[in-house]
C-alpha cells in the first residue's frame, strides 16, 4: 500500500531535487548566466525549505515515499521536528549567504574557480537537505558524501592557498564516511534493515551484544572527524579560514552541523543512548570548548579565530550525548535536545554573520590580522556592529538566542546532575566573551591590545601569548601596516577593493537575527521536539 501524498509530502523531495536540478542547469549554461541563475535557484530552494518547516510546525511530521516504495525495501523521506529545525536554519543561512555571494562575486572564490561556485553550492545544498530529511542509513551515507565532497570543492575554490587545506579536509571527510559505512554494515548484519526506525526496533529486540556499542562508537568517531570534534579538529581552522569569503559561513554554520545531525539520528533512533560512548563524547566536547576557546584567544588572525570558535561551539553541540546518556526519562532527553537545537540555530546565524564580516574586513584592509583592524571601526560601522552583535549571541550573553540556548543547557545539566557540563558551559562562555569581543575592542579603540603591556587578554598564558604575539607583530608589523595603509589608499583612490554597500547589510541582518530570534525560541523549541523518536535500547 502506498501512502497518498498531500501537498507537503509532494513538496518534500523537491527540497533535495530542486537544488539538484538547478545545479545541473547551472553546469550547462555559460558563466554569465550562472551568476543570474544561481541566486534564483538558491532563493527558490530556501523558500521550499522554509515552507516545509512551517508545514511541519503546523501539521506535524511529514513523510513521503519515493518511487512509491516503503521501507524496508524502499527509502523513506521524513521531515520531523529536528529535521525541520535544521532545514529551516539551512534555508535562512543559505538565503543570506547566497544574496551576499550574488552581490559580491569576488567573495565566491579565486579568479576562474569562482565560475563554479553556484553549481557547487547548489549541489551541496541538495546534499544538506538530503541529510536532514533522510530516514534511511545508507541514504544518510550517500547524502553526507555529497555534502563532504561539495564542501571540499568549495574550500578548493579559494585558490592555491586553500588547496592543501582542501586536500587534508578531503582525507578527513572520507575517513569519517568510511567509519560510518562500516557501522551501517553492522546494523544491517544485525537487523536486516536500513530504515532508521525499523533498525532501531529490531536492534532493541535482538540479542544484546558488543555490536551495538561498536556501531555507535564507529558512527561517533566518524562524525567526530567530520565535525572537527577535539582532538580531531586540526583540519578545520585551515580549511574554514582559507575558504573563500562566501564559503566559510556555509561550512561553519551548516556542514559541520550535518555530521552532528547524522550522529544524533543514530544515537536517538538506532542504537539508543550508551553511557560509555556518551562519556567519551562528553570528554571530547569539553576539550573542544576549552581548548579551541583558548586557541581562539591566542590567534592573531581573524578568520582563524572564527574557525577556532566553530570548533568550540561544536563542542557544545556534542554535549547533548552525555546529557542524553544521563537522562532518566524522555522529558530530560527532550530538554537536552532543545538546548542543543537552540544553540545550533543561534550558532549557525551568528557564525555565518561573523565569517561574512571577516571576509568584508579582509577585503577592506587587505589582511585579516586582528591588530591591523585597529581603529577601523569608524570606516566600517555596519560590519563592526555585526561583529559585535554576532559575538554577543555566540558567546551566549543575554539577551540573545545564544543565551536562550546556553540557559537551557544549564537547566538540563542541573536537572540530570551533570555538574561538569554546567561548569564547562560557564567557563566556555567566559572564554568566548574574551575572544569574540577582542576584535570589536580593537576596531573601536585607538590601540591594538597587543601593544599594551597589561593587556586585557585573560584566561591564557600571558607570557607565552604576549611573546608570541609581539614576535609576530614585530616581524610583520610593518608589512601589516603597509598592506593596511596601501589598501586603504587604494580604496580611497579607485574604490576597487571595497565591497558594495548592500553587501555590508547582510552580516548585520544575520547577527540581528541571531540575537532577536530569542523571541522565537519558544516555537523553535516546540518544533525541535516534534516527533522526536527516542527509540532504541534505553
Amino acid at each position, binding site marked *: 500500500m502506498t501512502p497518498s501524498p498531500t501537498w507537503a509530502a509532494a513538496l518534500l523531495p523537491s527540497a533535495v531535487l530542486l537544488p539538484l536540478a538547478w545545479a545541473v542547469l547551472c553546469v550547462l549554461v555559460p558563466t554569465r548566466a550562472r551568476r543570474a541563475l544561481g541566486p534564483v535557484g538558491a532563493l527558490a530552494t530556501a523558500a521550499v525549505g522554509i515552507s516545509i518547516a512551517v508545514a511541519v510546525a503546523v501539521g506535524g511530521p511529514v513523510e513521503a515515499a519515493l518511487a512509491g516504495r516503503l521501507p524496508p525495501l524502499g527509502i523513506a523521506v521524513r521531515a520531523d521536528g529536528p529535521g525541520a529545525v535544521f532545514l529551516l536554519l539551512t534555508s535562512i543561512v543559505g538565503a543570506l549567504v547566497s544574496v551576499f555571494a550574488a552581490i559580491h562575486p569576488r567573495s565566491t572564490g579565486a579568479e576562474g574557480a569562482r565560475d563554479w561556485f553556484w553549481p557547487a553550492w547548489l549541489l551541496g545544498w541538495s546534499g544538506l537537505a538530503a541529510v536532514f530529511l533522510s530516514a534511511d542509513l545508507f541514504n544518510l551515507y550517500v547524502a553526507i558524501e555529497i555534502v563532504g565532497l561539495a564542501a571540499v570543492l568549495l574550500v578548493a575554490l579559494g585558490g592555491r592557498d586553500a588547496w592543501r587545506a582542501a*586536500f587534508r579536509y578531503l582525507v578527513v571527510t572520507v575517513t569519517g564516511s568510511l567509519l560510518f559505512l562500516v557501522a551501517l554494515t553492522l546494523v544491517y548484519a544485525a537487523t536486516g534493515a536500513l530504515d532508521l526506525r525499523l533498525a532501531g526496533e529490531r536492534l532493541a529486540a535482538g540479542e544484546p551484544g558488543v555490536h551495538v556499542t561498536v556501531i555507535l562508537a564507529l558512527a561517533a568517531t566518524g562524525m567526530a*572527524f567530520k565535525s572537527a570534534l577535539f582532538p580531531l579538529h586540526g583540519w578545520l581552522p585551515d580549511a574554514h579560514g582559507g575558504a573563500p569569503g562566501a564559503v566559510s559561513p556555509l561550512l561553519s554554520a551548516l556542514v559541520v552541523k550535518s555530521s552532528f545531525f547524522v550522529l544524533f539520528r543514530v544515537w536517538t533512533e538506532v542504537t539508543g543512548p550508551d553511557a560509555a560512548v556518551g562519556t567519551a563524547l562528553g570528554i571530547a566536547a569539553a576539550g573542544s570548548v576549552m581548548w579551541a576557546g583558548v586557541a581562539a584567544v591566542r590567534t592573531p588572525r581573524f578568520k582563524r579565530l572564527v574557525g577556532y570558535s566553530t570548533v568550540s561551539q561544536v563542542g557544545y553541540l556534542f554535549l547533548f550525548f552525555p546529557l542524553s546518556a544521563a537522562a532518566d526519562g524522555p522529558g530530560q532527553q527532550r530538554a537536552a535536545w532543545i538546548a542543543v537545537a537552540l544553540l545550533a540555530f543561534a550558532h549557525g546565524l551568528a557564525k555565518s554573520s561573523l565569517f561574512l564580516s571577516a571576509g568584508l574586513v579582509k577585503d577592506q584592509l587587505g589582511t585579516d590580522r586582528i591588530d591591523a583592524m585597529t581603529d577601523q571601526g569608524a570606516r566600517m560601522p555596519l560590519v563592526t556592529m555585526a561583529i559585535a552583535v554576532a559575538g554577543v549571541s555566540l558567546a551566549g550573553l543575554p539577551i540573545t538566542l545564544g543565551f536562550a540556548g546556553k540557559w537551557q543547557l544549564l537547566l538540563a545539566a542541573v536537572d540530570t546532575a551533570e555538574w561538569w557540563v554546567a561548569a564547562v558551559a560557564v567557563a566556555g562562555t567566559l572564554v568566548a566573551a574574551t575572544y569574540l569581543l577582542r576584535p570589536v575592542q580593537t576596531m573601536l579603540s585607538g590601540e591594538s591590545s597587543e601593544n599594551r603591556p597589561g593587556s586585557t587578554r585573560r584566561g591564557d598564558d600571558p607570557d607565552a601569548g604576549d611573546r608570541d604575539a609581539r614576535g609576530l607583530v614585530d616581524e610583520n608589523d610593518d608589512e601589516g601596516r603597509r598592506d593596511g595603509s596601501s589598501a586603504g589608499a587604494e580604496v580611497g583612490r579607485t574604490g576597487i577593493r571595497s565591497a558594495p554597500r548592500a553587501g555590508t547589510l547582510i552580516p548585520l541582518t544575520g547577527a540581528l537575527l541571531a540575537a532577536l530570534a530569542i523571541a522565537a525560541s519558544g516555537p523553535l523549541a516546540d518544533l525541535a521536539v516534534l516527533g522526536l523518536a527516542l527509540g532504541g535500547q534505553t
Partner: protein
Amino acid sequence: MTTLAWFSAIGAALFALGLVTMLLAADRFRRLVALNVSAAGSLVILLAVAGRGETADPVLHALALTGIVITVAFTGFGVVLARRIDEAEAADADAETTDDPAGDTIDAASGGPAHDVEPTRGGDPA
C-alpha cells in the same frame, strides 16, 4: 572459523591498514591509494555479510556498487587536486631556483596568507 569470520578479518585488516596510512602518510598520492584500500576493506566486510545466506543479498550488492562509484569520484577529484598542488609547488620551486628578482617581488606581494598556512603535517588530525 567461518567464511564470514575469515573475510571480515581480511576486510577489517584492509580497512585499518588503509585508514592508518591515509591519516599518517605524508605523500598525497600514497594517501589516495590508502583511501581506496580502506574503502575496499569496508566493501569486503559488506560483501562478506551479503554472502551469509544461500543466495547472495542483492541489496548489499547494490550498496557495494554505489560505494565503488562514490570512492572513484572522491579519488578522481583528489587526484586532480593533488596534481594541481604538486604543479604549484614545482612552479614555486622553479621560481625560487631561478635567480630572478621579479620572483622575489612576487613572493612578497602575494605575501602573508600563503606563508601563514601550516604545512600539512601528513594529515595528523590532532
